[in-house]
């Protein structure tokens, strides 16, 4: 048997195997489907669609002032936080941070998480010269680090200080969260988890701690937990004056 026909045989077997797509999908999926998951696992070869829009509702009334479970979970999941030994505190990356706000008039204080707000019309995407800053069809705002030239104009444009620039060489990144020197990064809404039907690490950690301050889901699906919660009680988007229609919304401020 010649070399080329051997290869073709192998290819044919694969082709036949692909005919059993259902079986294949089952093979890749075990452990992926969570019974409580708001996201249905999408087949790996299917692109994201604009029929969905992912978002998070932050219920600040449930957010404990001494808790940073969401921040630690994000650090662990995406590998930032302790990866930049040379950078100063001002230079280190922050994908999500715990912010304490205190009303100047009344003195009332509370804590809440801040991250990329995944705007519908993101200023960072508008200003990016190369299109590295982009909004995925399902509403997740990302940086394509392959074409990011590191100009930092998106950081100038972001009203939420959600983005960080990597100031030094990194090592031992997570395969699912590539990040490196000279490029800008921010919360990805854990797109690698969402793409296989899981929820973002911060949301999972918040539930695991029984705070349940974060609800993740599809804003376009009126039966999703997040849509119901948004419809039932009031919530705001930060810097609503800018009209950005953020995917992350806050209750209790």
């Amino acid at each position, binding site marked *: 048997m010649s070399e080329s026909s051997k290869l073709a045989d192998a290819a044919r077997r694969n082709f036949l195997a692909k005919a059993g797509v259902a079986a294949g999908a089952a093979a890749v999926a075990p452990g992926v489907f969570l019974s409580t998951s708001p996201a249905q696992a999408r087949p790996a070869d299917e692109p994201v669609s604009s029929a969905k829009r992912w978002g998070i509702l932050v219920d600040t009334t449930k957010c404990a002032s001494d808790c940073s479970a969401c921040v630690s979970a994000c650090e662990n999941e995406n590998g930032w936080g302790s990866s*930049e030994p*040379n*950078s*100063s*505190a*001002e*230079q*280190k*990356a*922050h994908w999500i*941070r*715990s*912010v*304490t*706000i*205190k*009303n*100047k*008039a009344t003195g009332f204080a509370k804590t809440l998480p*801040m991250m990329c707000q995944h705007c519908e019309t993101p*200023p960072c*995407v*508008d*200003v*990016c*010269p*190369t*299109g*590295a800053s982009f909004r995925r069809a399902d509403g997740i705002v990302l940086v394509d680090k392959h*074409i*990011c*030239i*590191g*100009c*930092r*104009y998106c*950081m*100038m*444009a*972001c*009203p*939420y*200080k959600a*983005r*960080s*620039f*990597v*100031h*030094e*060489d990194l090592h031992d990144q997570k395969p699912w969260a590539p990040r490196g*020197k*000279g*490029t*800008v990064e921010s919360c990805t809404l854990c797109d690698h988890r969402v793409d296989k039907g899981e929820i973002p690490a911060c949301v999972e950690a918040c539930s695991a701690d029984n705070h349940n301050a974060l609800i993740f889901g599809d804003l376009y699906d009126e039966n999703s937990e997040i849509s119901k919660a948004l419809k039932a009680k009031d919530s705001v988007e*930060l*810097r609503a004056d*800018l009209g950005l229609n953020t995917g992350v919304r806050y209750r209790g*401020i």
Partner: protein
Amino acid sequence: MKLSMNYREIEGKSAGFWILLGGLALVIALAGGATLYMEHEGHYVTGMNNQIVWGMPHVFAIFLIVAASGALNVASIGTVFGKPIYKPLGRLSGLLAIALLLGGLIVLVLDLGHPDRLIVAMTYYNFKSIFAWNIILYNGFLAVTVVYLWMMMERRMNRYYRPAGFVAFLWRLILTTGTGSIFGFLVARQAYDAAIMAPMFVIMSFSYGLAVFILVLMASYNWTRRPLGDAVLFRLKNLLGVYIAAVLYFVLVFNLTNLYATEHHGIERFILLDGGIYTALFWIVQIGLGSLLPLAMIYHPTLGKSRPAIATAAALVIIGAFAQLYVILIGGQAYPLEIFPGYEVSSAFFDGQVNSYSPSIWEITLGVGGIALALMIVTVAVRVLRFLPESLEDAAVDPHAKSA
């Protein structure tokens, strides 16, 4: 009758010439070294961080880019507005515009997180980004100005010289509008997000560019012992006075508008009253040393006729320009973002705090390198090509000029 103007290369044999070239080359080499170090280590060796994301390199780069477009103004006055006295200055004006722009762009590019991806910046365009537009505007400006110079310097092409001048004039207005809009289009920050940024940058370019032009003109005529008459010089310095006043007017309107809106009181208070270094730079350097003092010197009955005083006034305008850009760029970023109006904000990521910035020697060296590169280009160009008229004495530029 029309006088024909003789342009000639400078001799470029004196020790002074080689010392100047050597000095500039040394600065450029140092800047190259600083860049390699920054790019190899990463930006952590600079004073820039995730709060002050644009720093000293951007102050230098924007100064050079804005001054570049302003430097071309001298040629435009000759071509577009038909003032004969400016025509002999056209070649130097175009040369200076190209040199300053190249100096500025190289600083901007070398500060990128990935200067190695310049090809990406040239091949992937997001046309909604004013930055992407600027890449086209800057490259176009170089091309348009080269053509303009060619029409000026090549006798056979002289007949196309006026249309080329018009195109260059329009292009430079659009270019500086684009540069100002880098800030004007930033909705997020209190210090920017104002349409006046674009025309203010145009006026700033007139002033910065002319100040640089006057200094370069005076230095090159002085060092080559060519005659430079009062007619040309006084015309230029009076024009500089008008531009300084115009910039002051725009600064006044910009701040008055902000002062009217309670929303902007925070940033105004920060810049005008209690912003520390930024307040000092604004009042003492930008307004005092960089605007009022040179204005007084230029229009002073005796000082206004002294060459050292004119040169000093131009230098002061440049110092004021750096202060102004520093206040706009760094001051604007130092002031915290208003994410929660009415709240005091604190976090591990410096929310709600005035951000501090102390530039490192590396980023300053890179910026100075850009200036050195621009001057190097001018020095070499006037040595090898005919940019400078042999004489700019009063009788040569304008036979009807009264002798001073």
